[in-house]
C-alpha cells in the first residue's frame, strides 16, 4: 500500500471515530441531513432523465 493510500485510510478511520463519539442527538441530526440529501437526489429531474436514457 502506498503512503498516500495509507494516509487516506487513516484519515477515514479518524473521521469515523470522531463521528462515533458524537452524542446520539448529534448523530440523529446528521441522519436527518443524510436522509434529506438522499431524498433530494432521488427526486432530482437530472437523475430521472439519466435513468430514461440508460
Amino acid at each position, binding site marked *: 500500500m502506498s503512503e498516500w493510500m495509507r494516509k487516506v485510510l487513516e484519515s477515514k478511520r479518524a473521521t469515523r471515530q470522531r463521528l*462515533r463519539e458524537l452524542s446520539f442527538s448529534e448523530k440523529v441530526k446528521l441522519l436527518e441531513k443524510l436522509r434529506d440529501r438522499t431524498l433530494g437526489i432521488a427526486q432530482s429531474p437530472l437523475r430521472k432523465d439519466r435513468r430514461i436514457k440508460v
Partner: protein
Amino acid sequence: MKATLEVINRMQADGVIGKYAIGGAVGATFYLDPLATLDIDIFVSLKDRQGSPLATLTPIYDYLTSRGYKSEKEYLVIAGWLVQFLPPSDALDEEALQQAVETEVEGAHTRVFTAEHLVAIALRTARAKDFARILQFVEAGVLDSSKLDPILKRHGLLEKWEQFGVKFLRGPDPWGRDNL
C-alpha cells in the same frame, strides 16, 4: 426525530403500546458513525387486547391515523420520518426489547437495542447490508464478546457467526481468537 419520539412516547403513555426500542440503522447509529437511512424501525411490545396470540398493529394505526398521521405502504409518517412498527417476531426480538438501553434524543426519552442484540438480529436477517453492518460493529470495537456469545448461543446463531467469520474475517471465530 425528537418530535417523532415524542409522538411515540405519548402513544405509550396513552396505553396503546408497551415498551418499545429503536433497532435497524438508527439503532446502530447509537453505537457507530451515522448510517444513511430513510426509516426508523421501532420494535414494539403490543398490549394484549383480547387474549389473541396474534400481535396486531391495528391499534397503532388507528391511534395515529385518527390524529392525522398518514400511512405510506408499511410505514407511518410521523414528523417527517417513515416509521415502521415491528412486533417481536421471536425470542431474540423479545429479549432485545427487554434489555434495550435507555437514552434520549434532544431531551426526548427513548430506548435503543444493545449493540450485541443489533448484531445478533443482523446475523439472523442475513442480507448483504446486515453483514456490512456487522463488520462495522466489529471494526468499531464496540461489541462485548462476553455479552454477544451468550446471546448467539441462546438463539441458535453460533454456527452463523462462525460462517460469518470464515467468509468476512480471519477465521471461524470473528473475534480472531483462533488466530492469536
